């Protein structure tokens, strides 16, 4: 997912780091996280991927905040980090409950709810 | 007030029945309620003025102000006899099903009364959404009646009935909503009142199918056509009629099918006159096809109830011809035939039910020689057969003759087909009569172990009113037609810019008109 804020590529794109670079990095991280959620089958890895997605968004917020001179972005980051932590707590609690029952954290055993 | 009472009293009855503690007095109670309702409906005559084509005994109150939907009841010559047909048939149906329905009696009786409210409401409602409410409501009790107390394939039949009818209805709902928005420009505020719909001037383009009036016309016509039922959409009828219990069949054939033709007469044709003129030939065609098709298929039926069901299809074809002839003879004949069909086919189903109660079989081949064993039954059956065939002196003759006259005036070829249909009608009915009643005694009739008893007094009491009506309507049709003359003349003469008016009879309707104006969001002229 390439988001370009500038209309044309300046010649020193590689040398001078600006907003587009952060956005590109954030989108790469986000896509990686997305791939992890959709493709991996280990519950812990899926949780990690969700955290990765949320942190990618954090990066994007910080980048916008820095380059546009607004503080709201950084405020958002605080909230998002808190919520991500809460989500991680809940998710891991669920994983523990699953592990206790199924003795496995691989979700290939989750096939009962079909059809 | 009397119209509201006639419409909603049956629901009160249904609630009373639902909570009535004593099981043994249920049936007399229900019968008494039905008689009360019938007498109440007779009271309508006291206030009805046959000389005017205006809407009478109007009750109009604002219901959902935002959309201009009102609680709007009114009666005129067209709906008068249909309401009476409903209230007349209900006690007869209850008396006729005295012994045939014994399980879940409360539910059954309550369903009959809720259905009565829905049917009478359909005939009296003058507001489109109010009408739609009753139209859809009628599906539910009939669905239960067929599904719980019906025959072998009752679940299939009742679901088919429900869904088939509903498809047409929902398209009609879209059309109604669209027209409600159209009224905003004409009347100044959104309104669902039929009288305001009549004032709409919807553009019509002759050849195109997608012109506005044509689309709306077919949306309405489809819903009613499925109900009538018109030829290609009739497939639900044989199943529903055969699988329904006897009282269900009588009400279905006697009144519910008329809701379709009433809808065509009151809603489709006056609202969309140009489209009706343009596409009238199509309806006459399917009517004629229905007559002949119904008759031919009826001839080969082994099951007597199915034969009567297909004869229904055939008879409704006549009504269709009459309505779309657009002249006085046709319209009068169509309306009269609606009543006749209610009486004659209702009586036929009652008779079939009586014989079924005795032998639990409807196979024609197993009968024969019934005349020797059940003479009174034979006489009654024969009289009703004559009515169905439209022999002079019976009600059927008046109706069919008027229809043939009207069709001949409008479109000669269809008249010839219709006349053929009369002959075919005689063929299958008399054929069936011969097979069942004359000749050698069939296996069910000659069975020594199960002798058949002739009609008991209750059954005679059920049939006598029907027979009286057959002759009364046949010999003195003017007693009935005098009340409808003004309205039908008004409809036929002013078809292209049909409008109905009424005199505000009570204070509330005057203030209601004011409040409708106050509540308008559109521009007032």
């Amino acid at each position, binding site marked *: 997912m390439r*988001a370009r*804020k500038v209309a044309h590529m300046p010649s020193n794109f590689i040398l001078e780091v600006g907003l587009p670079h952060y956005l590109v990095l954030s989108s790469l991280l*986000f896509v990686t*996280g*997305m791939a992890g*959620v959709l493709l991996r089958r280990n*519950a812990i890895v*899926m949780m990690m991927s*969700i955290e990765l*997605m949320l942190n*990618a*968004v954090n990066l*994007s917020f910080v980048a*916008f905040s820095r380059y*546009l001179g*607004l503080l*709201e*972005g950084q405020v*958002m980051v605080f*909230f*998002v980090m808190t*919520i991500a932590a*809460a*989500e991680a707590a*809940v*998710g891991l*609690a*669920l*994983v523990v*409950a*699953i592990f206790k*029952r*199924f003795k496995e954290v691989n979700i290939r055993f*989750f096939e*009962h*709810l*079909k059809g | 007030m009397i119209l509201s009472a006639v419409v909603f009293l049956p629901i009160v009855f249904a609630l009373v029945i639902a909570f009535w503690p004593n099981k043994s007095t249920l049936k007399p109670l229900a019968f008494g309620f039905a008689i009360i309702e019938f007498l109440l409906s007779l009271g309508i005559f006291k206030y009805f003025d046959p000389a005017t084509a205006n809407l009478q005994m109007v009750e109009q109150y604002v219901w959902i*102000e*935002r*959309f201009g*939907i009102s609680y709007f009841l009114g009666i005129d010559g067209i709906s008068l006899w249909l309401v009476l047909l409903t209230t007349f048939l209900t006690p007869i149906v209850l008396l006729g099903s005295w012994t045939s329905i014994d399980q879940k009696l409360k539910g059954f009786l309550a369903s009959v009364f809720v259905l009565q409210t829905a049917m009478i409401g359909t005939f009296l409602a003058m507001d489109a*959404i109010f009408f739609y*409410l009753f139209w*859809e*409501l009628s*599906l539910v009790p009939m*669905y*239960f009646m067929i*599904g719980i107390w019906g025959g072998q394939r*009752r679940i299939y039949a009742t*679901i088919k009935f*429900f*869904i088939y009818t*509903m498809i047409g209805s*929902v*398209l009609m*709902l*879209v059309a109604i*909503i669209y027209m*409600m928005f159209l009224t905003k420009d004409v009347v100044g505020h959104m309104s669902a009142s039929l009288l305001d719909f009549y004032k709409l001037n919807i553009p019509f383009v002759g050849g195109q199918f997608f012109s506005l009036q044509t689309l709306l016309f077919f949306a309405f016509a489809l819903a009613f056509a499925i109900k009538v039922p018109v030829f290609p959409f009739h497939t639900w009828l044989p199943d529903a009629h055969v699988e329904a219990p006897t009282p269900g069949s009588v009400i279905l054939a006697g009144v519910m099918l008329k809701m379709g033709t009433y809808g065509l007469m009151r809603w489709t044709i006056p609202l969309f006159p140009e489209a009706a003129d343009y596409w009238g030939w199509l309806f006459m065609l399917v009517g004629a096809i229905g007559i002949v098709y119904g008759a031919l298929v009826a001839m080969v039926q082994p099951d007597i109830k199915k034969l009567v069901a297909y004869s229904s299809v055939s008879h409704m074809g006549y009504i269709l011809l009459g309505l779309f002839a657009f002249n006085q003879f046709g319209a009068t004949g169509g309306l009269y035939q609606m009543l006749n069909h209610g009486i004659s086919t209702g009586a036929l189903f009652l008779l079939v039910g009586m014989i079924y109660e005795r032998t639990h079989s409807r196979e024609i081949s197993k009968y024969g020689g019934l005349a020797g064993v059940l003479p009174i039954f034979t006489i009654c059956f024969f009289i009703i057969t004559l009515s169905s065939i439209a022999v002079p002196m019976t009600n059927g003759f008046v109706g069919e003759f008027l229809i043939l006259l009207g069709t001949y005036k409008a479109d000669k070829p269809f008249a010839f087909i219709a006349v053929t249909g009369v002959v075919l009608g005689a063929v299958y009915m008399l054929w069936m009569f011969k097979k069942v009643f004359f000749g050698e005694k069939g296996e069910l009739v000659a069975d020594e172990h199960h002798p058949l008893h002739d009609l008991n007094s209750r059954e005679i009491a059920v049939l006598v009113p029907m027979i009286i009506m057959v002759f009364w309507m046949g010999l003195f049709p003017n007693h009935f037609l005098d009340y409808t003359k003004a309205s039908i003349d008004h409809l036929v003469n002013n078809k292209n810019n049909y409008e109905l008016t009424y005199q505000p009879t009570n204070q509330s309707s005057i203030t209601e008109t004011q409040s409708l104006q106050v509540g308008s969001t559109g521009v007032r002229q």
Partner: protein
Amino acid sequence: MTNIGMADVFRISPMIILFLSSLIPITIKVIRGNNEQAPAATLFQGLGGLFASAILLATVYTLLGGGAQSTAFARAIVIDGITLWVGLIALMGAAGALLLMHDNPATNGDQFSELVFLTLSSALGMLLLVSAYDLLVVFIGLETMSLALYVMIGMSHEQKLSKESAFKYFVLGSFASALFLYGISFLFGTVQSTYIPDIIQQTANLIGTNRLFMIGIILVVLGFCFKISIAPFHAWTPDVYQGAPTPHSAFMATAVKAVSFAAFLRIISTKSLVGSESLFDFLQWLAVFTMIVGNVAALIQNNFKRMLAYSSISHSGYMLVGVITAGISDKTSFANSGVVFYLAAYSLMTLGAFAIICLMEKDENTSIQIDDMAGYAKRHPLMAFCLTLFMLSLAGVPPTVGFFGKFYLFSSAIGEGLIWLAVWGVLNSVISVYYYLRPIVVMYMKEGDAEEAALDFSATKTAILISAFFVLVLGIISGPLFALVEKAL
């Protein structure tokens, strides 16, 4: 500098009261040394909290009049008509769910106080979500609501399906939230504010020109579509509803859906957004696709809860039609009222339907098939009649509230010229009649021994009777309610 003072606290007092009352049951439990108090007491504490919150919400709204001074916390929260009505729907859904949880074997017992705490916390998140005027608050509300729900579903006494369902819900819900958040970040970057009216204002300028804004909007819409189970992002709904304990399914199907739609309505439905060439057709196709997928899939279901899940997907489709109408309409209050009225009607019917399923569940491992209802009408005629009422209302048969909900919705659609959408909608209603009639057929017309689980179900039956009463009464007298809602919006 904006001052935060008592006025702001007053405006969020419903949420504060909800939070405080959510703490009462678990505090009492701790004081009693980790012994559960009588379930009825816990239930009443929960219901009392919800009721107090509802009263406060209505009071705050009436006193403020919904105008400019109804915002709080530097315009992060607004108490307007949507907040009031959808908030009431959410609180009603939570109350119904609590009644069901009290009786259901998968949820009652030794962790009922915690469940009450979580339900009220989730309701708190819902109130935040509907009153949010800033995208950050939307996110917070969304997450609060969802996290509490993940835990609730995971806490079920049933060991296999509920864990799977909780985990699926968690993963897909978090995924959707992350997408949503990413969209917010782009919107923030382009509009340079997270305040919703600013975004709405800037939409007209930016939607055609700014690619980043467009992506942000699409991501926000995608995130919401997950939450409200719009096809093709609906796949989690049947699994999660089937696996979760029935009270939680009821809660999800009613309250969560209602508030998510309300937030969607607030953000998305502006003329420039919904009416833009790119989104308009896309949203219409989504609506039609959702209706068809939901209805067709429901036809072949045998598990009752799964059928209701697909039915709720199809209802999302109808509501999306309403949201589209509200978006392109000039008479916004009329179209919005249609959506809100339908949300209320839908919540009542669905709550009732799930409640009846609760009656049949003997222990936490039963899974009710539709054929298990055979012969139910013989022994329990009143409850069978209520289920009939709910099914007919869901199908849209007059004179129930379901019919009028659809009528208002499709009326505003036709009024805006979306005739094809309305036709699709009504045809889908006819398709749905088939599977809504099936339980009725089975109950009345088939022989069987369906028996209620022999427990004391007074709380559940109360919920059923109240819902049935309102389904019928609100249908017959729907006019005043609609007018009231419209006045507020």
